């Protein structure tokens, strides 16, 4: 615990150091890296201890604020979120140290580094906080510092807009979390988690807490339709920041919900169903929007929504499992969800870093202007491909393991005796399969369009792999993708403590359940290693073939069309148009069509962009309404002193009459 505190302190300190360093962001970046790394090192021991042995530690000293104590603690749940958090943040710091030297970072990056450290500190405290007020404070610090990071380039109009949307979204979320803790706290003087008397399940209070928690934390996690800030904020943020935010910060929303669930006792069935519905809509629609977007970072943001959907599907089947009293299924579901949290943290971080590299080198995130980068930056390409494969849930990468567990839970659910559980499982299977297919489509596009084929514009003309500081984190993350993919059994065994905390099933049961679940994982590992061996054998066989060395280079077969130009290639939008066609109800894509009336049309342009459905048709109108009303009020306020005094008279008269008539 002391180590952890020390790490926390160092982290905070490094932030302030970064604030006071020299004008060139170098020293600042260095201190940030140092801070995050040392915090990681110092806290990893306790985290692993608590993860593996399921132990938990507490520490607290009183603050003078009402309801508040500086109560922190590490238990499997916290540890599970804390480790990837610190890991990813140190990697992002390393990455950023090079990235921030880009021409885009014209202004000095010290502030940015300061807020970076603040963000990491805030997230850490959120995860380990054991007191409502402390949690809220840390939560808001996290939100605000990330806001400042997002609006790093606040000269641009769209950046400011995105920042504002993000700010308001998170603030509204906080309002709900406010309520959650206020209700949970009951009427005792402190909001320590230990002091929360367990709300009886099924009561109205429990349901209220649940609903508010889902709305509050969901707005951070990005449940549809509370997700609107994601596709706005991520494209404009510096890439290592958006990697951090999408990789771990939105997961803290999930963490919050899980943490609240531990206070609520046995869940009724409809909670599970709620989660499954949320998961279904977020997953499918999220990936659909991802398919429709051309900007690579916007695409990644939407795919985060999708992955959050998958996670909540897992949580949902877990909850349903508990309420239908099928502990094994519950364990599988939660384990799958948690594993996917970890995995998404890894590969989404990786993908954002990759996208950042592309942005950094070419200066554009518009996929339709990119292409053929694989030859220019092979390492980045390989890493991005790894990320894409794992986010599409392809074995043997890590993405598959988590989804597999959720699938497994669902299949067991179908074979289980209770009807509602089977129905839930059907939904889960169907949506997971659909999501998987669409994700495959989406990321084969993301990778293929950006890195393969011919360059679509001259933006890619002189680009190369970035320096070590940017490359190293990506490589490490790709390694992790494979490692987690192969060590599925071990890692799932580590989840026991966390799962038991969420599901309320005692640890030994979880251990046995996960051991059972780890057998298939083991055989998957065996099989995939087998296949890899075989693949390499086939490859070498191919090399050994007689006339293989007679390898000739020709241009791509163009079916006799002589004057083929790169622009003729399929673009991201044309690639996905068959799929996106299926979701046209939500994807209101706007086309700027050329008017080709004459026989030989001249130069023309065709462009399409897909606005966010909910922002377009729900939130913007509401905001507009408020604006109108307010302007109306201000106009109608005459400013005549007579009227003002009339107000006073009317007030006193009404009050008197009211008083006497009462």
């Amino acid at each position, binding site marked *: 615990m002391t180590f952890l505190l020390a790490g926390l302190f160092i982290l905070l300190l490094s932030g302030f150091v970064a604030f006071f360093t020299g004008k060139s962001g170098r020293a600042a970046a260095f201190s940030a890296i140092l801070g995050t790394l040392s915090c990681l090192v110092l806290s990893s021991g306790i985290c692993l201890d608590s993860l593996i042995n399921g132990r938990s530690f507490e520490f607290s000293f009183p603050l003078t604020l009402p309801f508040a104590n500086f109560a922190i603690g590490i238990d499997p749940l916290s540890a599970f979120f804390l480790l990837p958090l610190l890991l990813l943040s140190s990697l992002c710091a390393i990455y950023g140290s090079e990235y921030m030297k880009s021409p885009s970072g014209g202004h000095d990056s010290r502030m940015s580094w300061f807020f970076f450290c603040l963000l990491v500190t805030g997230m850490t405290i959120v995860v380990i906080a054991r007191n409502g007020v402390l949690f809220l404070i840390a939560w808001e610090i996290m939100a605000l510092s990330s806001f400042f990071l997002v609006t790093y380039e606040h000269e641009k109009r769209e950046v400011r807009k995105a920042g504002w949307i993000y700010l308001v979204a998170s603030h509204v979320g906080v309002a709900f979390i406010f309520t959650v803790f206020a209700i949970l706290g009951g009427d005792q003087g402190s909001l320590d988690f230990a002091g929360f008397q367990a709300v009886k399940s099924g009561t109205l209070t429990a349901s209220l807490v649940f609903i508010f928690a889902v709305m509050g934390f969901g707005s951070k996690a990005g449940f549809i339709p509370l997700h609107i800030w994601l596709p706005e904020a991520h494209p404009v943020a510096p890439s290592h920041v958006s990697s951090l935010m999408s990789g771990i910060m939105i997961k803290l929303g999930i963490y919050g919900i899980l943490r609240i669930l531990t206070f609520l006792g046995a869940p009724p069935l409809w909670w599970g169903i709620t989660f499954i519905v949320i998961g279904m809509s977020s997953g499918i629609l999220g990936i659909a929007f991802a398919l429709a977007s051309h900007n690579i970072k916007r695409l990644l943001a939407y795919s985060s929504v999708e992955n959050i959907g998958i996670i909540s599907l897992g949580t949902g089947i877990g909850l349903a499992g508990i309420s239908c009293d099928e502990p094994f299924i519950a364990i599988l579901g939660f384990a799958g969800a948690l594993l996917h949290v970890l995995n998404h943290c890894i590969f989404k971080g990786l993908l954002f870093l990759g996208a950042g590299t592309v942005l950094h080198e070419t200066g554009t995130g518009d996929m339709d202007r990119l292409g053929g980068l694989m030859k220019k930056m092979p390492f980045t390409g390989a890493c991005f491909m790894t990320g894409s494969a794992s986010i599409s849930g392809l074995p043997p990468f890590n993405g598959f393991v988590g989804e597999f567990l959720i699938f497994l839970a669902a299949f067991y659910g179908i074979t289980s005796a209770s009807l509602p559980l089977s129905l839930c499982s059907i939904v889960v299977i169907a949506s997971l399969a659909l999501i998987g297919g669409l994700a495959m489509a989406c990321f084969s596009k993301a990778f293929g369009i950006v890195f393969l084929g011919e360059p679509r514009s001259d933006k890619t003309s002189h680009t190369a792999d970035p320096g070590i500081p940017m490359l190293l984190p990506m490589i490490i993350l790709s390694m992790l993708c494979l490692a987690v993919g192969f060590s599925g059994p071990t890692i799932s065994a580590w989840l026991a403590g966390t799962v038991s905390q969420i599901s309320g099933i005692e640890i030994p049961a979880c251990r046995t359940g996960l051991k059972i679940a780890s057998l298939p994982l083991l055989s998957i590992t065996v099989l995939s290693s087998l296949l890899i061996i075989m693949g390499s054998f086939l490859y070498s066989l191919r090399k050994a073939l007689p006339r293989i060395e007679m390898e000739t280079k020709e241009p791509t077969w163009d079916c006799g069309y002589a004057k083929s130009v790169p622009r003729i290639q399929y673009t991201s939008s044309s690639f996905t148009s068959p799929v996106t066609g299926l979701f046209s109800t939500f994807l209101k894509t706007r086309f700027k069509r050329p008017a080709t009336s004459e026989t030989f049309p001249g130069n023309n342009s065709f462009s399409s962009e897909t606005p966010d459905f909910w922002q377009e048709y729900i939130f913007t109108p509401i905001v507009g309404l408020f604006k109108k009303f307010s302007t109306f009020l201000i106009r109608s306020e*005459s*400013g*005549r*002193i*007579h009227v003002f*005094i*009339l107000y006073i*008279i009317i007030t006193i*008269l009404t009050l*008197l009459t009211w008083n*006497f008539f009462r």
Partner: protein
Amino acid sequence: MIILLLTNFSLLASSRLDACIRIITFQGIIIAFLPILTVRETHIIFSYPPYLLALVILTVKGIVFPVLLKHTLRSVKVRREIEPFVGYGASIVIGVIAMTFSFWVCRQIPLHGTTLSASALPVAIFTVFCGLFMIVSRVKAITQAIGYIVFENGVYVFGSALLIEQSFLVEVGVIFDVFVMVFILGIMTFHINRAFDHINTAKLEKK
């Protein structure tokens, strides 16, 4: 009391500013005699505070205000209140309504013996309302000043009607208040007059 009522109504009705000033002077003089009446009621013959008070009020309300107001009036060269927000007939009607309201209000509240007279209270409240109404309904700054004075008279009547004992400080408060008010308003009108060429608060507004 009845006289007081009538003064109020005439105030509501009159359009000429100097007439208004004359009326409030008259009102002030009447009010000045209230403490003495109170003395009569409470049978404490030789207690000087009431007389002193009467004297002060006589000087302030009967002499200082009129002079000040006349001065301002002269300095801003307006004779009559033009274009009020509420016409004079309507003002009378509203006055009647206000009067009934104030009587109704007084019926709601339990009174006890020490009051000056049953009618004093409603009249006081009515005066207050008249004052407020003048402030709201008249355009000229100076008329509003007059209205404010009426308002203060009402408050004062109210006080002296209700509070027989040791209400000295309160009266001092009133005088202090009104005095300062007229002072301020005088300055104000002065400036307003300089800023524009006639006293019209409505024109002060932006846009």
